């Protein structure tokens, strides 16, 4: 039977609570084409409508407004380019947002204007950047040339310096021989010694006045056979260059290189590049050509370097002066660029926002249909029924903005479609609702567990995290986050802190509740608190090592929580374990009972009486007759004074019974209770009766509902109503609209296939699951005790292992030790006890809600309402 509950809800008061999701309406909008952009703009600002795609079968580039989308894509690309240029030149982007423009009232003309301005900026920046790059390339060239000149000169002087000094007066021959050891790697020079040395010598003689290295260098350069090439190459390539040259010239070369200390800015990648200047001597023009080719292919830039020292000097001076000029131009250009970009930087944030909004508008318009005359656009979407007024007024504003007098028409459609689920949340409930949504989004109209989670979640957490001190620290940090939430909003941007920030209210409540349970457990950083006089007194005589002393009972009972005297009592664990275990069971059963009870409002809402009578009632009876009775026994045991004596001094009770055994023997030997375990009169009979009721409930749950469903179905079939393949036409309520085309849409309802076997199997599974789960889930709540025990013990261990020893120390070092001990203790407390233990308790609380609580009543098969809003669009763009 399909649920029709939705339509029936309409008569009810339209309240906005977190108990159920909002009442939703499917609305249809007839928007005149010239208002369309304004209308969507307004709707995007208020963010209340989720539009349906009416052109599902049309592919993305065939839709009506694809050209507009493309236009804004192009503008966005230009903006991205400008932004990258801003980053490159280190101009700060203004965070400023021009609300007047980015807001809601801009028209197409403003957009055109903006586009023009962006285009103009883009053009200018492009040109300036191109010019800048050009200049930079020239600059780079000159710079490299300068380095090459310098390095070549120093190379020559080095060579000459090594070889020249001893041979200064001995003629050329000694230069040659002296040069050899300095040029180990230069077989060329050593080999050409004999053949070409003489000619060099004769040339040198003619230039007797020159200094040593000049002659050497000049000689090499002027020799027709031995020439050199010089250039600059990336530093990591130099080894390759050398190797390849060596191989291809068969060793007939000599390469020397010097690393250029300063990184050279590469205009292409805009990063620093380390380069080396090199010089290659090779023999003969063809080999030099080859070397040139190789060097160039490996990415080296070659420079003409003259062989004579003076010319080199002149070149160097010339280059330097040109470099200076160019530097000047470069700086001017950079200033112009920065000026241009500063203009952009002021506006770019606004532009980005506007362009993204406009793009979103046209994406949304692409979801709409044109009517037959193409005069207006038809949109369909979901919105909360209570928001319709707000939407209408937004549409009104849009019409005014557009300067049109044709109003936009909004009408509600009746539909059987399942609406998306819209749970209105605020800052506080948002975090809790997220916890629920992570399990499953509530179906429309279903009871939303988020309401209960707001309190039960932090409470169950606190039961596992009970410590006043830890709770206080947690509260403090969360309270700071909440108090300064606007200023700390940036935290939400960091991936690791986002969870903590968005869950700040959860953490706050968890902290507050932990303080409360800490008070009840009487634990503050594992220490006891004695706010009130204890109900026990330790004997004044301390006894001695290894002697057990017994505390004497005083008259009063400690007013709140556990008596501090239990701390450090040797049986304190026995006491707290038993207490916490029972507490866990009691709270767990209450929690689950609440879950089962929530089936009632669900059934009422969806008009399924059968779910109350034949699902809820047997379930609640089953649970109460077994675990409800256990809870009763626990409370009874707590409230009985098992060691009370009557007037004659005799014990009135035999002794405290074991509840575990009681529960086990309730099943094993029904109707009997051994005398030593007896708690009250009539116990045996009561237990037998309860067991019987529980057993009766099982077939009730299993069989009754499917059988009733089958009977109803057969009744319908026998009356001849079966299998109407029903198409429900979506009809509009406003009939008086001339010209408005109603989008006729046929909604196929899911076929009323009644399959008894399916239902039976389903029911069997549900029944078995419920019965088994009632046991396993109850046991599962014992984690409350287990984690609380672990937490208490861990914090105790931390105290005694790190901080306590320093307090017991004596001597002058004690203050230092206390300081260190405290630091260690505090860091570990925050890191392990609050951080890690907190996460683990969080996880277990989450599990108790998802598994133990939600599976009692919650489907969670809804679809989340995602309205079209600029805020979401911009947030998404920011994240990228």
């Amino acid at each position, binding site marked *: 039977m399909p649920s029709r509950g939705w339509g029936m809800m309409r008569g009810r008061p339209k309240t906005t609570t977190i108990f159920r999701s909002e009442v939703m309406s499917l609305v249809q909008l007839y928007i005149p084409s010239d208002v369309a952009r304004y209308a969507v703009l307004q709707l995007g600002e208020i963010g209340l409508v989720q539009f349906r795609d009416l052109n599902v079968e049309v592919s993305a*580039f065939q839709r009506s407004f694809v050209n507009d989308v493309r236009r804004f894509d*192009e503008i966005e690309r230009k903006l*991205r380019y400008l932004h990258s240029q801003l980053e490159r030149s280190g101009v700060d982007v203004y965070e400023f947002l021009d609300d007047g423009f980015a807001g809601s009232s801009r028209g197409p003309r403003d957009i055109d204007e903006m586009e023009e301005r962006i285009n103009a900026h883009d053009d200018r920046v492009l040109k300036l950047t191109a010019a800048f790059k050009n200049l930079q390339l020239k600059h780079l060239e000159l710079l490299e040339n300068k380095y090459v000149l310098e390095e070549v000169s120093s190379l020559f002087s080095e060579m000459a310096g090594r070889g020249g000094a001893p041979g200064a007066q001995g003629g050329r021959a000694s230069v040659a021989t002296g040069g050899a050891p300095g040029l180990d790697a230069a077989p060329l020079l050593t080999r050409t010694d004999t053949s070409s040395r003489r000619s060099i010598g004769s040339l040198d003689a003619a230039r007797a006045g020159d200094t040593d290295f000049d002659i050497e260098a000049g000689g090499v350069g002027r020799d027709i056979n031995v020439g050199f090439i010089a250039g600059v190459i990336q530093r990591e390539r130099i080894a390759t260059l050398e190797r390849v040259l060596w*191989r*291809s010239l068969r060793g007939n070369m000599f390469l020397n290189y010097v690393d250029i200390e300063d990184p050279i800015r590469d205009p292409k990648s805009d990063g620093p590049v380390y380069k080396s200047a090199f010089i290659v001597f090779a023999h003969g023009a063809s080999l030099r050509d*080859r070397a040139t080719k190789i060097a*160039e*292919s490996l*990415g080296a830039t070659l420079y003409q370097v003259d062989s004579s020292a003076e010319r080199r000097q002149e070149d160097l001076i010339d280059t330097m002066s040109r470099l200076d000029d160019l530097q000047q131009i470069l700086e001017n250009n950079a200033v112009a660029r920065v000026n241009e970009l500063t203009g952009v930087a002021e506006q770019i944030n606004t532009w980005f926002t506007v362009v993204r909004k406009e793009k979103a508008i046209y994406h949304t318009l692409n979801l709409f249909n044109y009517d037959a005359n193409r005069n207006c656009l038809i949109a369909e979407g979901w919105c909360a029924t209570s928001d319709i007024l707000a939407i209408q007024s937004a549409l009104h504003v849009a019409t005014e903005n557009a300067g049109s007098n044709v109003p936009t028409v909004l009408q509600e459609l009746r539909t059987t479609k399942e609406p998306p689920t819209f749970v209105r949340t605020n800052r506080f409930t948002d975090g809790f609702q997220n916890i629920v949504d992570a399990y499953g989004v509530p179906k429309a109209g279903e009871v939303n567990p988020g309401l209960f989670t707001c309190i039960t979640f932090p409470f169950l957490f606190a039961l596992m995290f009970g410590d006043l001190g830890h709770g206080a620290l947690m509260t403090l940090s969360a309270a700071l986050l909440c108090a300064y939430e606007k200023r700390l909003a940036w935290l939400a941007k960091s991936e690791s802190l986002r969870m903590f920030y968005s869950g700040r209210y959860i953490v706050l409540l968890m902290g507050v509740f932990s303080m409360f349970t800490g008070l009840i457990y009487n634990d503050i950083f594992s220490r006891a608190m004695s706010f009130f006089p204890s109900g026990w007194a330790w004997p004044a005589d301390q006894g001695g090592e290894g002697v057990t002393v017994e505390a004497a009972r005083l008259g009063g009972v400690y007013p709140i929580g556990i008596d501090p005297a239990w701390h450090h009592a040797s049986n304190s664990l026995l006491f707290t374990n038993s207490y916490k275990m029972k507490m866990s069971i009691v709270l767990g059963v209450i929690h689950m009972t609440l879950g089962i009870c929530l089936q009632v409002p669900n059934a009422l809402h969806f008009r399924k009486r059968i779910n109350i009578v034949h699902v809820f009632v047997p379930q609640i009876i089953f649970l109460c007759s077994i675990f409800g009775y256990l809870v009763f026994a626990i409370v009874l045991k707590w409230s009985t004074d098992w060691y009370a004596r009557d007037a004659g001094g005799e014990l009135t009770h035999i002794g405290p019974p074991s509840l575990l055994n009681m529960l086990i023997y309730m099943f094993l030997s029904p109707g009997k209770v051994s005398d030593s375990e007896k708690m009250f009169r009539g116990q045996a009979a009561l237990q037998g009766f309860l067991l019987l009721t529980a057993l009766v409930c099982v077939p009730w749950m299993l069989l009754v509902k499917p059988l009733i469903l089958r009977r109803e179905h057969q009744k319908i079939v026998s009356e001849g109503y079966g299998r109407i393949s029903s198409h429900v036409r979506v009809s509009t309520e406003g009939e008086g609209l001339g010209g408005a085309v109603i989008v006729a849409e046929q909604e196929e309802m899911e076929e009323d296939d009644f399959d008894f076997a399916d239902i039976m199997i389903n029911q069997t599974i549900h029944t078995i699951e419920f019965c088994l789960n009632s046991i396993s889930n109850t046991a599962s709540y014992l984690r409350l005790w287990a984690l609380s025990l672990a937490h208490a013990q861990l914090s105790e261990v931390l105290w005694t292992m790190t901080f306590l020893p320093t307090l017991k120390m004596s001597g002058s070092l004690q203050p230092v030790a206390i300081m260190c001990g405290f630091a260690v203790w505090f860091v570990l407390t925050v890191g392990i006890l609050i951080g890690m233990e907190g996460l683990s308790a969080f996880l277990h609380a989450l599990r108790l809600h998802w598994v133990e609580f939600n599976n009692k009543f919650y489907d969670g098969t809804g679809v989340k309402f995602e309205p079209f809003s600029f805020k979401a669009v911009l947030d998404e763009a920011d994240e990228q």
Partner: protein
Amino acid sequence: MNEIHFNVDAGYLEGIVRGYRDGLITAPQYLNLTQCETMDDLKLQLATTDYGSFLQNEPSPISTSTLAARCTDALVAEFQYLQQNAAEPISRFLDYITYGYMIDNVVLLITGTLHERDTHDLLEKCHPLGLFDSMPALCVATTVQDLYSTVMVDSPLAGYFRECLSAEDLNELNIEIIRNTLYKAYLEDFYAYCRGLGEPTASIMAEILSFEADRRTVNITINSFGTELSKDDRAKLYPRLGSMYPEAQTRLARVDDMDQVKAILEQYGEYKNMIVGVSLSASAAGSGGGSGVLSLEDRFFGKEVQLNKDSFEQQFHCSVFYSWLRLKEQEIRNVVWIAECISQQQKDKISNYTPIY
């Protein structure tokens, strides 16, 4: 036993590469691509694929060559990410994959130099995965001996090059011979290496590489018709592996026309279906003939895609890296083909791509 330790070093990479695989363009997406009217439409459609971020900053009238270049950039970026994160033996395996591109680049450079093209233009055309340090220096070599002793000797291809040294001078024919000899040596070496990696890599790669070898064998045979290549030389170029080695290869070495090739291929189950209905005369050139009719080349591509898809069916082996790269390459070929058809207004041939998923 390999499987137990596989995830220690390669689990992350395998996850990544499987993710990459899931990013491949699917059939409905291809359908959308083929419906595009202009290159802008195509760009819009591609924006939702893995190529989106590589295309988004291109100014709007986009050319086919830019598209191809950006797509290759995407491929290279993904492959390099794998390489950077790889440990032995995956890193070595990935290196092996790049050798194939190196061979192509070397041959491209040599041919270019022979035709006196500009070295820098040539370098830009080289596949970025097949670059090695001293590669640019290839342009100065004029003899095979030179090539080897100058450049190739310390490239990873040195070992493969030794067999080519017999060729004397560089001309078109010799370059083709060098290419095929290199590729043959590469395939054999790669095959042996994969053998050493153990199961299941060995068997999966064996299948893929055998197919590759068979394809080369057939292509060499077909391409050698009407050239100066002697039949003995032709036999020497066949890779010594694959299902056609050795008996079919000895027979293929002697054939003179397409019909004989067809007759030999028909004896192999996996190729029998492939050649049915193929107009073999048109397929010699490789690129597809008329619309609708798939050439032998296309059938080979289809088979290759199938093999590579199959390799994803198993886990804990290196072949996925090879297969993913091949599939991605095929995808780029498809996209470029569609783009060409759109920009040249040849919509009737647009569906001649090889669908992958």
